[in-house]
């Protein structure tokens, strides 16, 4: 009996230890502070549309949680130039275009710093972008199609070649870029250009054979995200098969009912309702016979 009591006591002590250890672990996990993460992405599309995409997340241990409905102020270079008041969506993202009111400030410098504040707290102050542009040119060299892409950067109010910029050069396909040559990406040389010889020469285009050439730099440290597009008739013309929708079928609109179905349906309806109308006339006849 004494031994039994001793064993029960040991069991209770062990359970208490486990419970205490578990609670301590939970408490430690709860005590890890969450960190606000603000990510900035600058976009320049076809050298004419510039915008900033802000991503707000909360990092706790290894988990990133999007911060929805958070409000931030975005400034250009200083607190005097408000770009926009941003409110994040359910994915924790918000977008802002450079407004016309800041045209003078935008054009006045080669480099710009974007500042993000939440209330009075400055969350980002070191996101610096150098203004740049990207151009696409095409040529035919000894029967081969060539794409020349040049990247220029603004330096002391002058456009100068931007060397060492990694680019994807190819054709827009299904939301991505299919490389035009053999390499996946290309890097600009000292003249700021890349030359890509097109190896994919039988891609389907639209009905006129037009396809879109695209050159894109993704998350470049100096220039951000750059994209240039150019339409060209290098593709194979695609014949759009409208016959599929023109045909008479069971699944089409009522105006394209199959003839056989129309004939069957109407002959039955006319046959049956014709007989019924005849019978109504017979009732009328019975009525007249009774009145005369």
């Amino acid at each position, binding site marked *: 009996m004494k031994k039994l009591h001793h064993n029960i006591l040991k069991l209770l002590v062990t359970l208490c230890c486990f419970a205490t250890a578990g609670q301590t672990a939970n408490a430690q996990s709860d005590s890890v502070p969450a960190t606000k993460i603000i990510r900035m992405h600058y976009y320049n599309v076809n050298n004419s549309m510039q915008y900033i995409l802000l991503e707000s997340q909360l990092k706790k241990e290894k988990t990133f949680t999007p911060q929805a409905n958070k409000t931030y102020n975005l400034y250009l270079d200083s607190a005097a130039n408000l770009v926009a008041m941003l409110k994040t969506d359910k994915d924790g993202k918000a977008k802002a275009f450079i407004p016309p009111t800041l045209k003078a400030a935008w054009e006045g410098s080669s480099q710009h710093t974007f500042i993000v504040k939440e209330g009075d707290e400055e969350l980002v102050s070191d996101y610096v972008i150098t203004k740049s542009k990207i151009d696409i040119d095409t040529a035919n060299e000894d029967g081969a199609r060539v794409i020349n892409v040049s990247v220029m950067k603004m330096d002391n109010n002058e456009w100068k070649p931007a060397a060492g910029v990694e680019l994807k050069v190819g054709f827009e396909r299904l939301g991505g870029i299919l490389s035009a040559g053999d390499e996946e990406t290309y890097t600009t040389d000292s003249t700021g250009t890349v030359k890509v010889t097109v190896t994919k020469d039988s891609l389907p285009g639209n009905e006129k054979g037009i396809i879109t050439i695209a050159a894109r730099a993704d998350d470049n440290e100096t220039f951000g995200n750059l994209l240039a597009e150019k339409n060209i008739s290098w593709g194979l013309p695609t014949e759009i098969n409208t016959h599929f929708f023109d045909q008479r079928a069971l699944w089409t609109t009522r105006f394209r009912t199959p003839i056989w179905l129309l004939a069957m349906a109407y002959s039955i309806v006319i046959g049956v309702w014709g007989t*019924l109308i005849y*019978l109504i006339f017979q*009732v009328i*006849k*019975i009525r007249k*016979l*009774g009145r005369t």
Partner: protein
Amino acid sequence: MENITTLTSEQITKDLMPQQFGRNGKIWVAILVLICLIGAYAYYLQLKDGLIVTNMRDYVSWGIYISNFVFFVAISLVGSLITAVFRLANVEWSTPLTRIAEIIAVSAITFASLIIIVDMGRPERLLNLFAYGRIQSPIMWDVIVITTYLFISILLLYIPLLPDLKIMGEQDTKGPKWLKKFYRFLGSFWKGNPAQEKISNKSITILCILIIPVAFCIHTVTSWLFATTYRPGWDSTNFGAYFISGAFLVGAGAVVTAMFVVRKMYSLEKYITEEHFDKMGKIVVLLALLYLYFNVNEYLVPAFKMKKAEEGHLDELFTGQFAPLFWFAILVGMVIPILVLVTKKGRKPLPMFITGIMVVVGAWFKRYLIVTPTLLHPFLPMTNVPENFKHYFPSWEEWAIALGSLSGALLIITFFVRIFPIIPIQETITQQNEKATS
């Protein structure tokens, strides 16, 4: 009807004239009106708040409204069986049953049309069917064929009624004046002269020929609403014949039930005899065996193959949550009626009445089992949906509307019996005279 050959025409007319409601009749009407009013209130709530008041959701989008619709369409087919098929086959004993069958057909098909509008949720959109309807759609075929069947059934009810309307108009009874005027409006022109008789007989024969293919169409098309949809339980080439055989069975069950009630209430034992019950009993056995045969085809073949997609659906029916209802419908709706009615004693009026009710109740639940379990077993698994999407049990509004529609159909039959002779007077007299002279 051998025992009525001694009755005079006056006696037959007196016996078969419609009678005022007694105490039981008034209570019966009051109960039906009350259920209809509750149904109307539930429908008002549905119109006000939308179909959300029902428990139909994304998966079960056809609930007891559509089950009720299929039931009504099925029961309406009896008009073509008793009236048309028997008349064309010169089955003389069916004369007292023709009008019972025809009024059941008219009331059922009327409420089949109404319950479809209830199921639409937005009744005003019914007009879109006519404005933008596609003849390729089986739903459009159903609209056309139901309208046609309703029209034929009304004509088949009305034309044989003409001689009786004349008799009723001439009778010096105590009934209300408006009723006399109503009879005269409907049939005062009937003189019963040979020319009228000839046209009437010819019209009835044409209607009898016409109603049979239309009746087959109406229920075949209803079955195609399901069979043209690729789903476990509905993907069957057997469905048209399966539905029609079931429709004849439930219709015959309804006629048997109505025969008993009318006979009892109006003391019509001389006209609806035990022989009628005996013959109708044999017909019910035949139809139940036929429907059972199609059921075996419908369930045994897929169960033998047990394709993955069908498995869940069949398991639910045979051993799952729908098993009690499924075996109830099979046993009560088919097997027990066969076992009872196959004996001579079972074909006496009272057992016939009870089995008639069993057939009708079993048939209603059978329609529920055709519609709902299939919708709960889509080919793709139900994921990321609220829990109540995965089950279905009708809300009180659905029950109230469904029961209201059933009561409405019974009210039409009840008022018809009150206003018109439920057994054709003139035809009975003519038949008796023919027998007396032969």
